[in-house]
């Protein structure tokens, strides 16, 4: 049964209701830093790290290293105790961050402190957004995110059907709300999501959870083909870990690649030994070179050895 059948006849859909469309002529009343960062830096690199892994001070150094290394957008994970969309790598990072005492307050103070070229997004689960204020309400979180200078929000457990309250608050405060498009997202659902998305569409490369993989899934190519008709930047994540993956994904029509677990692996390997930042910077540079290779078909020149 489709959702459209349920509305009483003669009643107009509210924005974001099942079957509702954001009219194409009505653009958000703000300039999207996120969309600009992807379009202007094509092919874009979006880097993810979990805030507070292993400490908020380390995260500051890692984010700045990724920014230097060529990340065009940086996604910061605000840890939630039940990360159902994450694989073992990011789940472990979230556990480390929680054990280190990471709180939403600490997270926002970190963002207050950060000065990066790349706009910053927060990735977290819906309950964390709801609980930021005294009542179960999304607004205090969005207000604080805007105040801290975040440019957008990604919520892995918030499908378009449930997103009205957050969509409204984000519109009001000039934040992008990025939706995930899965390999199972097709037809009406795809239309519905693409009419709500802002910043970019997060294309999930394969079914399952996050985690570095050895190859690029054929589902990625199918998803990008389905999305080619929509004029929204598309970035592919879930399983991207190497420059060659980035090249293949960009060549298949993506505007950007999203890399998380491969970066978190570097942080986990180095622990707090102080070398993680340099390794992250080098990895970002490798991924960005790979992406460029995918866009131009040519090898970018190797960077000078530090």
């Amino acid at each position, binding site marked *: 049964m489709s959702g459209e059948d349920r509305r009483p006849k003669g009643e107009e859909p509210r924005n974001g209701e099942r079957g509702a469309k954001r009219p194409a002529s009505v653009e958000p009343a703000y300039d999207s830093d996120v969309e600009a960062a992807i379009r202007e830096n094509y092919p874009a690199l979006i880097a993810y790290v979990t805030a507070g892994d292993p400490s908020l001070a380390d995260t500051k150094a890692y984010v700045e290293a990724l920014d230097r290394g060529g990340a065009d957008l940086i996604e910061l994970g605000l840890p939630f105790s039940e990360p*159902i969309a994450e*694989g073992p790598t990011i789940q472990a990072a979230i*556990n480390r961050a929680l054990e280190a005492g990471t709180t939403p307050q600490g997270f926002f103070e970190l963002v207050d402190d950060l000065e990066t070229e790349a706009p910053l997004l927060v990735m977290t689960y*819906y309950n964390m957004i*709801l*609980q930021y204020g005294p009542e*179960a309400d999304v607004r205090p979180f969005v207000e604080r995110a805007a105040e801290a200078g975040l440019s957008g929000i990604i919520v892995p457990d918030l499908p378009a059907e449930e997103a009205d309250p957050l969509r409204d608050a984000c519109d009001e405060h000039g934040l992008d709300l990025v939706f995930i498009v899965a390999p199972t997202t097709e037809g009406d659902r795809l239309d519905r999501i693409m009419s709500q998305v802002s910043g970019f569409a997060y294309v*999930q490369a394969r079914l399952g959870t996050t985690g570095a993989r050895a190859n690029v899934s054929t589902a990625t190519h199918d998803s990008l083909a389905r999305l080619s008709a929509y004029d929204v930047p598309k970035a592919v994540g879930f399983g991207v870990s190497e420059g060659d993956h980035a090249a293949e994904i960009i060549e298949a029509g993506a505007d950007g690649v999203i890399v998380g677990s491969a970066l978190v692996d570097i942080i986990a390997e180095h622990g707090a030994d102080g070398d993680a930042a340099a390794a992250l910077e080098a990895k970002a540079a490798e991924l960005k070179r790979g992406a460029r290779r995918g866009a131009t078909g040519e090898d970018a020149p190797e960077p000078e050895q530090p």
Partner: protein
Amino acid sequence: MSTSERNRERDSERTFGDYGGQYVPEALMPALQELEDAYERYVIENEDGFMDEFRDRMRDFGGRPTPLQRADRLSERYDREIYLKREDLVHGGAHKLNNALGQVLLAKYMGKERIIAETGAGQHGTATAMAAAHLDMPCEIYMGRTDINRQRPNVYRMRMNGAEVNPVTAGSGTLKEAINETMRDWATTVERTHYVIGSVVGPHPFPKLVRDFQSVIGREARAQIQDRAGRLPDSVVACAGGGSNTMGAFHEFVPDCANPRFADDSSSAERSSADSQAAQPRDDGDEPREHVDLVAVEAGGSSLEIDEAAGLAPNSATLSTGTDGVLHGAMTKLLQQGDGQIVESHSVSAGLDYAGVGPELAHLVETGRVTPVTVDDEAALNGFHRLSNLEGIIPALESSHALGYLEESHDELGDVVVVNVSGRGDKDLETVLEETEKRDLEAAPDVEVFDG
């Protein structure tokens, strides 16, 4: 509008008042729509005779209907009529089969090839493994490491029925972590796999689907008590963890209320309290409705406080002490810290040990139709021993909470009381022996006399 039309309209909604919804990763949304479609067609409309086959199998394989037994010695002890709904006599030893068989059969009708499920106490895992064996479906069960250690007989039963049991070591290794891991499996294999969720929790349509399969408990009990006592009970008492035996026992009684505030349906219960002054029996063309109190007994554990620093709740009293939030696909009441992290719950009963609760139950509590109460570990253990000793029925530790409440508060429950014995306690014997030895329980036998 007829009752069935009203039910149809209500069932087309994704929420119960402010609770419910579908808060899941995008990859799962098409599967939820597919399930919603199957629920409408097969469960509501009985397409292809689905519900007929389900009822036949519940009769022949599952052992339904279960008796409503008058508990003579409890009735004498409390000086009122106490009836026990004997879900412990369902095949597998608990009400869980009602839902597991329904969902595995539904998965088969939907053309799914593989069954996955989570389990806490192991009763749902056992029921799912039995149903999958009965219907010839491959089955994998996720179970927390702590629960595997405290519910070993059920682990063996699942494996004997051909299911794989996957241990989950994250967090405290209980039901919450098992659900997370099952959701991850489902997000990877969603196209061919059905996730048999074990309680009235999770994203729409699971809370309604599970409730409908479980509502046979209350439907039978309602007819049986009218037959035996010639009237409806004053109260129905059931334990509440996730809430599947609770909703199963309560659902048919939700409209039974002399209070017009609740007369129409559960979702129209927001009217002014002035309405509730003019209590009138509802005339629905059937019989005048009598008032039935619905009492959900939660695990009070060792304390009702949350230890914020440790992220622990020494209880599982979500309806009584929880706050609104989103966990495992639904907006509901949760045991959580102020900043939104979910706390580890505790109960002596693995089956109640969960930080969330079904969204419909949260709504019924919020609108005043269901009263949540708590019973601590010790009172539950006494309830366990008392029923074993007085009536020759060894109840599950989950159900023992309802029996503990009966002991403490029978004066408030009226003249005719139905207690749902949601399962049998064989699985809990190791825990009960261990926990009994730590305490001086008035209802427990002296086990030491057997040691020498």
